[in-house]
């Protein structure tokens, strides 16, 4: 299951990375090498082994429904690259086209 250039292009779009042709080529070689190293675990027979997504043997970690102080509007917007009308300004939104 080797990664190809088409997959690299697709993944770059999904990850919102604007990579040049050269970068995409280099990326392909590097990812192939790293994924090649991962082949040793792909070969393992792990049927019946539970996947481990958390390192703590805990369940039901919750907080009570209590209102806490929010940031001020000024604090919330202080780091924004661009603000208009107390909102974060972004260029034209394209519907999800990857």
């Amino acid at each position, binding site marked *: 299951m080797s990664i190809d250039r088409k997959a690299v292009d697709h993944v770059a779009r*999904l990850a919102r990375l604007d990579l040049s042709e050269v970068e995409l080529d280099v990326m392909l070689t590097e990812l192939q090498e790293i994924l090649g190293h991962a082949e040793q675990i792909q070969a393992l027979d792990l049927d019946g082994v539970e996947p481990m997504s958390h390192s703590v043997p805990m369940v039901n970690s919750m907080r009570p*429904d209590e209102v806490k102080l929010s940031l001020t509007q000024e604090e919330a917007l202080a780091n924004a690259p661009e603000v208009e009308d107390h909102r974060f300004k972004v260029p034209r939104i394209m519907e*999800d086209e990857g």
Partner: protein
Amino acid sequence: MTQVQDLYETTVGLEIHVELSTASKMFCGCRVSFGGDPNTRTCPVCLGMPGSLPVPNEKAIEFTMKIGLALGCKIAEHSLFHRKNYFYPDMPKNYQISQYDSPLCHEGAVEISGDWGTHKVGITRVHLEEDTGKSIHIGGGGRIADSDYSLEDFNRAGTPLVEIVSEPDIRSADEARAFVTDLRATIEALGVSDVRMEEGSMRVDANVSVRLKGAKEFGAKVEVKNMNSIRSVVRALEYEEERQRKALDAGEMLVQETRHFDEKTGVTSSMRTKEYAFDYRYFPEPDMVPFEPAETWVGSIRESLPERPAARRARFAEEYGLGAKDVEVLTSSFKAAQWFEAAAAAYPGDAKKVVNWIIADLFGLLNEAGLELWESKIAPSQLANLVTLIDSGKISGKQAKLVLGGMFETGNDPEKVVAEKGLEQVSDAGAIEAVVDEVIAENADAAGKVRSGNLGTIGFLVGQVMKKSKGKANPQMVNELLRRKLS
């Protein structure tokens, strides 16, 4: 229905999002409320600032399980939150914390009924996720595709949002209406959401497909979005059903797509989204540990559940002897049902009388004012008092209508309105007798006819007495006095 339409059958599955009315957001302590100055209810967590972490709101988990149990679902013994990854500027982390293959609740069913009978709609799952912020599109008439730029407000970001997914068991727009109405009443009764479609605290998306009757495969699944009222759901589904039937008639291939419903034109149009945009790369949310709700917790939620709409409908028919139409009107909303039951409880007699006053008279006033039953100034006990006043003969039915109008305007007790309007019936036997005597004297002919056994004429004499008393005399007493004196 035409012959042609009968060749096809429609399948609808609904996906309903409900914003929970917790005090604080899903993963942080910011207040949940509608609107407000932009970006005034945010914090590092709901702004997706680096380093911030989500801590789930216990109440939101509880509310979700409440909805699940009310919809007959099983509660998962082990449930996980997942990240749904996609970029969108109204989503601060560019992933949504949602649930994927292990939702909190699954496998429920709801019973709906209408002209087409009664049947079950399966509930696939009920899960919990977080809401996004809100974008405003500037330029191009506010439409996203034509706008120059957009502005983001994150006040709503992180509001707990429950997603309810139905099985594709719905077969018409009217069934969808019944399902959504029932669902709304159920959730309203639980007190876990405002369920206001206009404000977006309840949002309905539909998957619609039409196929030839008896076909094994479902037709192409079309997702319809942006329906902002139950009325819109019906209109959009009717339109979409018709569109797909016509396309099939014309031999066209339908494609799986997402379509946008336009409230103004009543038409759906394709949103032209590309397929690869939907590689959401779900994986278990590492910032949160799994949920394994204790049986005692689930049990106590189960015990606290209010009556389900279907059960309430049956009970109303049985307990109050109401017809199907009255039951439907009174149970379409939990608050309406609650209002009626409070009035019925305050009234010692046959509750049907109260129902008649609600449906025949009060609804007229409410409709004119654009109010719901529970929003009127009249308290349920006040309506019960009004009906009691009629029973006791203090006012006539005709007067009661005037009194109801006064109560509706002022919210005053019926007794007060009666006194203010001088509508009190005269039930003082002496006073009535004097008028009766006067009338007998002035209408000797008619009185004679009654004496000689022509009882039909007694109505004329009653009318004369009522006229002389300006309608205040108790007609029952007038009748009795006339009969006695002319027997």
